[in-house]
């Protein structure tokens, strides 16, 4: 092969068959072949009725009634979980890194004032303008004021869960600012007027045929062409002129390094770098909990973030913004929006350690089968169950019950948040605050009494098992028993564990020969 040929990866004209070679599994690429699916009407998310508690089960039922979407979503996310496991297995010190990450976060969150002061001091010294916002409204107001002061009409931005949390896009839109999301998944969701369904892969609940429909409607692409290369290229071609004519750029912040005053942003598309570097104004939205002490700590988190999220060794771009470019301005808006309240919740403050990798979502059997939009909240999945009620205890009171308590979320969490234990604790808090329905409460009270007494519990088991074998199906599979909706009851063992143990091991616990 001549140098000329080797050195000429052709610019794909919008169609490259299967995209990148199948042996490459970096980025968010699937490691398995996903069979062709769809078209099938896309199930939509939870129905929001003011401040009424979200009916996640209702939305989940509709998701499960769309077999093509369900199968793709489940396969896709489980593949990300398996890719994560493969990466973890290549790092001998993985568990050490998890412990370090957790310890660094504990240390930082308990010295938050010191590190925020240090960060602010260094960022200012680097020429950054620092703003503080107590809540979402103030964040939105500050950002729009900066934009208006520069007469900025179009803002290009990369994905940021904080701006989702603040409802920034809607606010800025109402103020006459054209906000353009530059992450492909986030852009799909923006064009479809839908929230992101996952913190890392925002459109993961959509089939390619859904995307073809959205792009045909909004970008004028061919509605019958759902080739993924074609769709991605359509988006690139439509977004690029918007990027080149934008007046300002906005990014989120994955990590804020106190030692240097830098913000670190991780993307696979390079869209944060485009957003920050193309215009003369870069605004960063940053939650107070993003702070870490120094660059040595940063190494721990960067090594784990993408491996946990996507099973990729690192995001394609890990960008460190320490100060403004020559002739440009850089602003950082540091936002509380409920985080200091959360810091004071004895059982729940460690949820502030979250680095938004989404590993808990990928592994969660409920999330994989119900889709992120069924939660009707900014944060879905296991981490959402323990964060959302801090924003609104009534509206999100039902969410902590959307868990099987299998604990897998806790096991994959890179910063070792005891997610499933906090889910259980939230159930207790919500029950004490009368935020759960009377029927569920009386059932739980009865179950509580039974489970609190080993003698009563053991006595009840053979009876219950025997009853399960003989009770007619209609008595188990009815409206009152939510467990059997969409599930079969497990087959009933012939004897309980205690009966088996007694029979095979006798009184001394030694195996009978």
């Amino acid at each position: 092969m001549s140098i000329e040929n080797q050195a000429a990866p052709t610019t794909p004209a919008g169609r490259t068959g299967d995209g990148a070679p199948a042996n490459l599994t970096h980025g968010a690429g699937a490691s398995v072949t996903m069979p062709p699916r769809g078209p099938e009407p896309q199930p939509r998310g939870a129905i929001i009725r003011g401040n009424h508690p979200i009916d996640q089960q209702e939305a989940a039922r509709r998701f499960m009634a769309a077999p093509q979407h369900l199968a793709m979503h489940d396969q896709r996310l489980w593949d990300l979980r398996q890719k994560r496991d493969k990466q973890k297995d290549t790092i001998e010190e993985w568990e050490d890194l998890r412990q370090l990450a957790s310890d660094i976060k504990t240390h930082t969150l308990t010295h938050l004032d010191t590190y925020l002061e240090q960060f602010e001091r260094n960022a200012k010294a680097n020429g950054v303008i620092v703003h503080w916002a107590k809540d979402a409204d103030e964040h939105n107001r500050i950002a729009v004021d900066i934009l208006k002061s520069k007469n900025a009409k179009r803002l290009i931005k990369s994905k940021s869960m904080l701006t989702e949390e603040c409802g920034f896009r809607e606010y800025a839109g109402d103020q006459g600012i054209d906000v353009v999301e530059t992450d492909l998944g986030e852009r799909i969701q923006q064009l479809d007027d839908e929230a992101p369904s996952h913190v890392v892969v925002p459109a993961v609940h959509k089939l390619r045929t859904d995307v073809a429909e959205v792009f045909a409607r909004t970008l004028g692409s061919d509605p019958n062409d759902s080739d993924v290369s074609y769709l991605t290229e359509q988006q690139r071609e439509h977004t690029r002129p918007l990027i080149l004519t934008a007046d300002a750029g906005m990014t989120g912040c994955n990590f804020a390094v106190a030692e240097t005053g830098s913000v670190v942003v991780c993307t696979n598309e390079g869209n944060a770098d485009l957003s920050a570097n193309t215009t003369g104004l870069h605004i960063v939205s940053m939650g107070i909990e993003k702070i870490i002490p120094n660059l040595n700590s940063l190494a721990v988190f960067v090594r784990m973030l993408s491996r946990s999220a996507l099973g990729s060794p690192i995001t394609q771009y890990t960008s460190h913004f320490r100060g403004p470019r020559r002739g440009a301005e850089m602003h950082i808006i540091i936002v509380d929006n409920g985080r200091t309240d959360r810091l004071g919740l004895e059982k729940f403050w460690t949820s502030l350690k979250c680095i938004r990798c989404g590993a808990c979502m990928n592994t969660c059997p409920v999330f994989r089968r119900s889709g992120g939009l069924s939660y009707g909240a900014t944060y879905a999945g296991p981490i959402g169950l323990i964060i959302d009620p801090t924003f609104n205890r009534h509206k999100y009171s039902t969410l902590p019950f959307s868990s099987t308590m299998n604990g897998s979320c806790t096991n994959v969490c890179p910063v070792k948040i005891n997610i499933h234990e906090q889910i259980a604790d939230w159930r207790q808090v919500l029950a004490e605050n009368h935020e759960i329905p009377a029927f569920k409460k009386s059932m739980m009270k009865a179950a509580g009494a039974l489970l609190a007494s080993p003698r009563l519990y053991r006595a009840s088991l053979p009876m219950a098992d025997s009853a399960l074998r003989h009770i007619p199906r209609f008595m188990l599979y009815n409206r009152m028993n939510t467990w059997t909706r969409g599930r079969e009851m497990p087959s009933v063992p012939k004897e309980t564990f205690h009966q088996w143990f007694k029979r095979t091991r006798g009184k001394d616990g030694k195996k009978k020969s």
Partner: protein
Amino acid sequence: MSSTDSRAAIFAAIRANRPNVQPPQPDVPLFDTKAPTDLVAAFSDMLGKMGGSVLDPQGQYPINALRAAVANKGIIATAVPELHGDPSLQIRQVLPDMDPHSLANVEIGVVRAAFGVAETGSVCLTDTELQVNTLGYLPQHLIVLLDPARIVPNLHHAYRQPEFHEHNYAVFQTGPSATADIEGVLIHGAQGVRSLRVLFCAPQAG
């Protein structure tokens, strides 16, 4: 509320709600006892897995390989002294005061990395090397020159390099721009460059 009032309110709330533990800051080891001895090979292997490739000079002098790689490929933007701009403006010299948008029609950008990371196949580019930061993103393709002597074993070593204290912008680029936001199908060139190739060569003396 002004931003100053909010700042005070946030710090007051942090101090009032501080959890009742004060653990020390943990030390982060280098985790390099089993680092590969051949860092160039380890780097090249990871770069390939991350979707990038090594530009093989095939026995030629590396700079000749670079010239061949950019010959007749449309507009080239160079930020390296090894490749000069030409009078026909097919090869343009990137200068620090250029408008970031001026690189939008570039086919191939050429830049030197500050260093590489074997663990991930990443190259570190800073605002000094890029001159104009959009050089790393607006061209269709990127060729990165990397001194093979400047590859560190892992990210712990990488973050001990001085670049992160000295530059307003520094980025680890690992392969090309990629997305798999639609059904997990991996596509290169989501928003940024469609390909990234690394050419091993030491910087010019003097």
